[in-house]
């Protein structure tokens, strides 16, 4: 009931505040939810985590970038940068997860009665699921950053087509730096809110700084935010460079 009411309020607000594009955002959002559900079922049925994640990411990008913002130079630049950064962060995550053996249950899982009693020998590797959760989890932040940079560069170039690739590149980086602070804040607060009941357990159990940085649960809880921050950082110069090249390329 409450979900239905909230969804209706969101649709109504998007309709009156965002016009047609607001409603398009809503459909993109609902489309992403459907892709997410389908990919969960596909992972569960096939057990092929990486292949399903790859297809799901393509589906998310198709909706978020191209269906919502059209197929143009801005979205092509953002798409190219996102694919490169996802590959880098993906490889980096796999290495870190393997080196540290951080996948699987952390020490906090005993506090979740529902999960603690589940059969956990499921034939699907927790490591691959953690990599999938990182890749899908960082997608929003890096897409937002890449699209902000490429859109602004496009606007700048539209107003001044005499600019060369170097000047455009610099302008893109400036925009990226401007939005970086709030992107980090969005990620950090989203995590603070989402993991609130786990943070409470950490506080109640009087974890010291040293015990926190050696806790598997703490590392798992924050790993996504660190990888998303890393991705958002790296995507700024890359998107600027790609967009500048694409925009100034001879027709």
């Amino acid at each position, binding site marked *: 009931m409450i979900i239905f009411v909230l969804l209706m309020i969101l649709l109504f607000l998007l309709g009156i505040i965002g016009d047609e594009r607001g409603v398009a955002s809503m459909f993109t959002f609902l489309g992403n939810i459907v892709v997410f559900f389908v990919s969960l079922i596909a992972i569960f049925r096939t057990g092929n985590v990486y292949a399903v994640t790859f297809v799901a990411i393509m589906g998310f990008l198709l909706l978020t970038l191209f269906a919502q913002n059209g197929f143009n130079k801005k979205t092509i630049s953002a798409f190219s940068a996102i694919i490169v950064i996802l590959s880098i962060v993906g490889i980096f995550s796999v290495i*870190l997860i393997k*080196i540290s053996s951080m996948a*699987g249950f952390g020490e906090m899982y005993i506090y979740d009665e529902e999960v603690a009693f589940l059969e956990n020998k*499921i034939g699907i590797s927790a490591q691959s699921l953690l990599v999938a959760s990182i890749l*899908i989890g*960082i997608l929003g932040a890096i897409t937002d950053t890449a699209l902000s940079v490429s859109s602004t560069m496009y606007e700048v170039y539209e107003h001044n087509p005499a600019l060369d690739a170097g000047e455009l590149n610099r302008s893109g980086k400036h925009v990226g730096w401007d939005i970086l602070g709030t992107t980090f804040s969005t990620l950090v607060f*989203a995590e603070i*809110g989402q993991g609130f009941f786990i943070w*409470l357990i950490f506080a109640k159990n009087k974890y010291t700084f*040293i015990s926190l940085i050696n806790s598997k649960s703490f590392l798992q809880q924050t790993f996504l935010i660190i990888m998303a921050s890393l991705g958002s950082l790296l995507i700024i110069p890359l998107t600027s460079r790609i967009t500048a090249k694409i925009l100034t390329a001879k027709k």
Partner: protein
Amino acid sequence: MFISKRFLKYLIILVILIIPTVVTFNDCKLYKEPIGSITTVHTEKMPLKHGASDQTYKQTLTIKLMNTSDVGNSYKYKNSYTTSQFATTQYRKGQCVFLKTNVAAKNGGYGENGLKIIGQKYDYIWAFMISLLVCLLFAIAGRRAVLIIASLSMNLIVFALGMQKIIRFKDLEMLTLCMTSIFIVASLIILYGFSKKSFGAILSSSTTVLMVFGLYMLIVHFSGRIEYEYIDYANISEPIEQLYISSLIFSLLGAVMDVSITINSTVNEIVMKAGQSTLSNIVKSIKGVSNDIMGTMINVMFFTFVGDEIPIYILKMSNGYDIITLFSNGAVFEIIRLLIGAIGIVLAVPVSGFFAVILRHKMIVKKGA
């Protein structure tokens, strides 16, 4: 001599990256708890049991003690893990582990001295990740990195101190209000300084958060009791409803601040730089910008929230939960969080537009005339 600035910059970055990682990797002697380093690993694949979905592996590890009075002593240790590795761990050569001695065999102690691995040492992973992030931040964002780090540090300190008070479960509403106010004011002032833009964003963010809170309370009032006891990790002896509302407010703060500062910056730029700026032009620009950012901001929230949950969702589905059951228990609260966040993002647009225009009212009237 002939070292270029760029080379020097990368050299410094490399040093900053390597030193904390190497130091924390070798800091075992600073710990009181026994720590061992895994020096050899022998892995044996066990025959697959009929009908089992997981392959079992047995490991024989050699663990060398890195601290305590027995430093340097090596011990054999038996470990087993399965392919899914949810509740078991595959150890690798070079990893450092926290140990306990004299643990009874029935409790997992191994060998004569009852050795048991109780956890892994992750401090060097942290040192590496944070150093890498800080180095990249300085390399890419330059001096702005200082402001970003200051803002994040301030928020994390306020959160850590706030949590110490929250666990007393007294005056939760007041505490949430205080923490929220500090988060908003500190983040925006540190990142954007004392300016009309920051002031507008502070007013917009605070008002939006209050409106979303009011809306949520109103909906809850009319839609009947919500079974908060289904929230993952919640303890029913605590005021779960108030805690959940605090978590809702915190999770939408970043996104609301992001929208608020973007709208306030846009109006600021238009008023300062455009030759003539009428109210209808400004409203049109706010709509244009908001259309650009709303969709992607909602997606940031969506992917951050669902990404985290994938392993647990798959685990539950493998235990017979269908999609409906999965999302009608604990996940309901994540969906509510997501929708509340999205409503916050959308509401922040007109609220920010209102405050941005009000604060520059005189200038708009002057320029529009």
